[in-house]
């Protein structure tokens, strides 16, 4: 047993109102730079819908994730090591900018500079890729709220697969449609195919917390990770020529703060916590033959931190005590392993994703209420789960490789919780058979209710810090003034530099020139690496640093 800790996330889709606050705050924090205009580390998709990039779930086309070869061993769907190296001079499976969307800005200057005329001046859209005027045709959430679903709805790969099984379950006529929102970030998988696809070895999974990162100094821009990731959550920065991805806001997580997307979530639907797992069993689980068993196989990889043996093994493996404690209190573990209401997104990619989802029940309740039935009566609800517009088959395509049993079980637990809690709220004695019908006790249901409905900040985010003795630095205010990623054009986006900004100086014509050679100035880099003053202290004066060097 090789025990490892992973920071995992669960999102409760019932609560997502599709406000995109997570996307926007994430973009402000991480990707509001040149070269990253089209990138959303966090995006919210309306399902059914094509997603972002368009039809990313169509792995026959994009070749992301893993598959089993004839001997039943794991093999990168995009081709193994030799194939990758032989084809390194181009990557035919790389999504183009149009598959995401061509980013644009507006010609705002025209609003003030246009000569006096009969018409109001307008700000025309201008491509941020070519710099030329463009026609806006798509964006990261163009099909938000089923926009254009009658036309594009069938392009959702999951709709296509659902149709094959249940011919007319997915409907796009206005009065028959259903939808829900799916916020997506990097899955920080246990068996990451992006890391496995990186020829340079620049991508890695952190031992301490399982966060998957790209080493910006070692990435050589081969772009194999973009193809390798079936969720298309690794992006190519077209200015720096390096891959970038969701960092799980590790600078925040390290000091015990939730990620920006979690922190700012209006619906408070995100949960963050530690999960302990057995790294030795990951490959075996990912090799499970029937893809419908992958969900169960992944559950088996997780370890129970209440188990004395696991606790001992964790101590031997050097996992700090507060991490094991955090794993015991982990809301994520409770939702995934204890109540089993959270499900992984696309387990069939065999990457063992670690951002899980509680499937949405609300559309069922709402639709039931609209028909004049009691939307919170458990008998009605249980029946409705199978027959109502939000086809369980569609959810199953997303969360369990098409197996409806876990999805239905999760929805039934949520339905039972509603009925149970209604009785409690009305001062009635809850019908014990409701809880028993979903294999839970009344107390368990109430605990789950507390976690899902009223969990406060510290209950939703149980994040142990990366404590290493220096307590002062564990406070956010005590962090150094500059971020460790704060180099030119790096994710910390400080300053101009290698191919930075629009790269280089501006000519009289307003066009900016790119630099002759992309170099980080020697003194700049040295200063960046050596001048973080101790917490609370003022920055060491320039003179002082120099004296120190000259000695």
């Amino acid at each position, binding site marked *: 047993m090789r025990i490892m800790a992973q920071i995992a996330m669960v999102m409760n889709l019932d609560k997502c109102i599709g406000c995109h606050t997570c996307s926007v705050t994430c973009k402000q924090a991480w990707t509001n730079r040149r070269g990253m205009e089209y990138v959303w580390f966090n995006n919210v998709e309306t399902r059914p819908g094509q997603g972002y990039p368009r039809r990313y779930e169509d792995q026959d086309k994009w070749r992301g994730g893993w598959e089993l070869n004839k001997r039943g061993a794991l093999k990168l769907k995009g081709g193994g090591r030799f194939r990758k190296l032989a084809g390194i001079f181009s990557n035919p499976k790389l999504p183009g*900018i149009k598959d995401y969307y061509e980013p644009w800005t507006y010609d705002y200057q025209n609003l003030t500079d246009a000569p006096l005329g009969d018409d109001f001046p307008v700000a025309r859209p201008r491509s941020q890729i070519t710099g030329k005027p463009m026609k806006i045709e798509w964006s990261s959430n163009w099909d938000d709220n089923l926009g254009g679903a009658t036309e594009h709805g069938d392009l959702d790969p999951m709709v296509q697969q659902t149709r094959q099984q249940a011919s007319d379950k997915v409907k796009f006529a206005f009065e028959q449609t259903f939808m829900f929102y799916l916020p997506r970030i990097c899955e920080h998988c246990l068996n990451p195919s992006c890391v496995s696809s990186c020829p340079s*070895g620049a991508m890695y999974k*952190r031992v301490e917390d399982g966060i998957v990162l790209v*080493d910006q100094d070692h990435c050589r821009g081969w772009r194999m990770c973009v193809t390798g990731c079936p969720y298309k959550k690794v992006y190519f920065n077209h200015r*720096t020529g390096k891959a970038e991805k969701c960092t799980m806001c590790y600078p925040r997580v390290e000091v015990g703060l939730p990620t920006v997307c979690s922190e700012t979530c209006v619906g408070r639907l995100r949960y963050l916590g530690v999960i302990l797992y057995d790294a030795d069993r990951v490959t075996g689980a990912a090799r499970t033959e029937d893809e419908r068993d992958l969900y169960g196989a992944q559950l088996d990889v997780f370890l129970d931190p209440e188990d004395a043996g696991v606790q001992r093994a964790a101590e031997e493996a050097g996992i700090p005590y507060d991490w094991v404690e955090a794993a015991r209190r982990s809301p994520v573990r409770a939702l995934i392993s204890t109540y089993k209401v959270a499900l992984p997104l696309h387990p069939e990619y065999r990457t063992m994703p670690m951002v899980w989802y509680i499937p949405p029940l609300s559309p069922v309740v709402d639709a039931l209420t609209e028909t004049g039935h009691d939307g919170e009566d458990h008998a009605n609800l249980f029946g409705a789960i199978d027959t109502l517009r939000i086809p369980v088959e569609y959810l199953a395509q997303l969360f369990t490789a098409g197996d409806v049993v876990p999805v239905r079980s999760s929805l039934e637990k949520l339905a039972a919780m509603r009925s149970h809690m209604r009785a409690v709220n009305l001062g009635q004695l809850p019908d014990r058979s409701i809880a028993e019908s979903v294999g839970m006790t009344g107390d368990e249901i109430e605990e789950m209710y507390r976690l899902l409905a009223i969990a406060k900040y510290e209950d939703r985010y149980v994040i142990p810090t990366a404590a*290493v003795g220096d307590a002062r630095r564990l406070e956010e205010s005590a962090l150094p003034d500059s971020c460790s990623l704060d180099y030119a054009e790096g994710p910390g986006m400080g300053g101009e530099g290698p191919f930075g900004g629009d790269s280089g100086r501006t000519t009289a014509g307003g066009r900016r020139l790119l*630099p002759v050679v992309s*170099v*980080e100035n020697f003194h700049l880099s040295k200063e960046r690496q050596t001048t973080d003053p101790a917490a609370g202290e003022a920055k060491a004066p320039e003179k*002082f640093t120099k004296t120190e060097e000259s000695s």
Partner: protein
Amino acid sequence: MTTLIWGVLPYVAFVLLVAGTVWRYLYDKFGWTTRSSQLYESRLLNIASPVFHYGILFVLVGHLVGLFVPMSWTDAIGVGEHTYHLFSLYGGTAAGALVVLGILTLIVRRRVNASVFRATTRNDKLMYVVLFAAIALGMAAKLTHASGDGYNYRVSIGPWARSLFTLNPDTGRMHGVPVLYQIHAVVGMLLIALVPFTRLVHMFSAPVQYLFRPYVVYRSRDPRRLAARPERRGWERAGS
């Protein structure tokens, strides 16, 4: 002049190549990338880039054989000058044709596609000029001396190139070498000197280690990123 071009320039180019690469590696790891433009345009690149790269690898092998394998060795295994010439003519021309086709397509793509052109630096333009000049001159030199047994560079340029390693360059050998070959060699040395300062550095990142490492890479957090940086040698801080 002969000494300058054939006795000094090669060493300057070599020193720039090595020192420049070391310098770039130390101070510009972040800028060390292929800077692919595939995100903008994929259709042409998917064909032209492999054509060019495989061609240029073959050309590289051809140069290594031509310059650094002495004629006596090929004679010893029974490959006569005529056979060698034909091999080098057809093989080299085939590879050269791939390279020229590839680079022309790539250059046209770079110029015509607005997004790719916008992402082209002045550095790239210089690099393309030198690279294309070296390729075109090489092809021209080869093809203008193709008749009969062609020009036997293995008694002039080859020994000169090998003599560079003895630090006693035999510049005399370069007398009488056809002028196209001479220009090609000079442009080639210029290209070698340019490599570390352009995107061409990506050639040193051929990720061969990928074949031997485990798929999933684990890495520990750098402890220095969390704790205070250890004090470096020097005067004590004031007030401590």
